[in-house]
């Protein structure tokens, strides 16, 4: 028996196939955007971090602020200057 698709049914199939293709393309793009880290890169990163730690003298504990600071022009004795 020969199956004949109606035009509307065909359009639905084409749309679903297109949708599946689109979704998998996005997945692939997403996957490609996530770089793979190899052992060589990890070793380089660890060496870099070791140098930074040595430079800092340890592990900084950071206190974040956004504290306004007033400024003025002064001479070398911290006396205010006028222009």
């Amino acid at each position, binding site marked *: 028996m020969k199956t004949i698709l109606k035009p509307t049914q065909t359009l639905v199939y084409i749309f679903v196939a297109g949708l599946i293709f689109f979704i998998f393309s996005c997945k692939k793009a997403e996957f*490609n*955007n*996530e*770089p793979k*880290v190899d052992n060589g*890169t*990890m070793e*380089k*990163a*660890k060496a*870099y*971090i*070791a140098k*930074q*730690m040595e430079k*800092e*003298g*340890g*592990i*900084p*504990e*950071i*206190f*974040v*602020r*956004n*504290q*306004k*600071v*007033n*400024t*003025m*022009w*002064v*001479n*070398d004795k*911290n006396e205010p*200057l006028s*222009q």
Partner: protein
Amino acid sequence: MQSNFTSQCNYDLPAYCNLIQYSRVFRCTNVDSLSGYLLQFEYELSWNNNVVQNDGFNNLTEGNIEIVSDVTNNVMQTLTLTNTQITDLGPDPNPSFPNNHIFRVKFFSDNSQLVPRGYINGDVTGTYSVKLSANFVTDCKQGGGPYYLWLLPVTTYGFTGDRGNDPCKRNEKGWVTPAGSGGTDTNYLIIAGYNALQNLTCGYNSNFIEPSLQEVEYEVDGSNYWLPMINYTASGFFINGTKYIRWDDFAKTGTLPSGNHVIGVRYRNWKYNTSQTGWPIPNSSNACHNIGYFDPNNSIYEYSSYAYEYWIAVNIP
């Protein structure tokens, strides 16, 4: 990095100047008297003059620290910091200041300037306050005596005593490895947890309470659109593939666009309220996080919760 834009030299004051963070690093040795804290602090300002380390006449950009007794008001220790890092983040996007660039200026103390732990954590005499100020020199000098932009002293808060030992009121350093030359020669950045190399058992004082996790994000070219960095070393745990890392985990950005870019990285602490299994993703029900310290006695202080780092002209291959 020194800036290459032309100073206006018209005695304008900065459009703004903020103390954005300060850090303490406990340095220990086998000799107790040689142990103590290294201090660092950083300003951000928008200005139409270059900030330079040395104006060519031996006038230096300097940071100043005063440790003051809260009991007697006596100045117990003063430090002058000439170890400076000056970073030009580029033009200020605020159209009201078309000639301004945004600078970050950071000061570091060195091993000859250790602060005794009693001044940070308190001792039998009482507690202490830490006051920070700075003098900036520019490339505007045209003869005559030296002159400076003086950043008036401000007293730190939350830095000393018990407040400083709450992991949700501070951030541990996240270790960023830049991409491109000088870093990993890759087209992505890597960040590691605060003790990723697991070789610093003596990096803290005895009061240290560790955070559970650090939340890490990044942005490109000042977009202020923060994307999660991805933990790729916590295999088998809930936080694997998320933006949360443990003290020895690593996380990466997505692939970055090639060319020169300014990459921003930010991170903040989280601490579980109770013991957890499998390192679940933290939320406001099971953990606290750094929301920035708010001083109820002085509501004018704005606060921020993340520590920010910027990598200038990162040359992505």
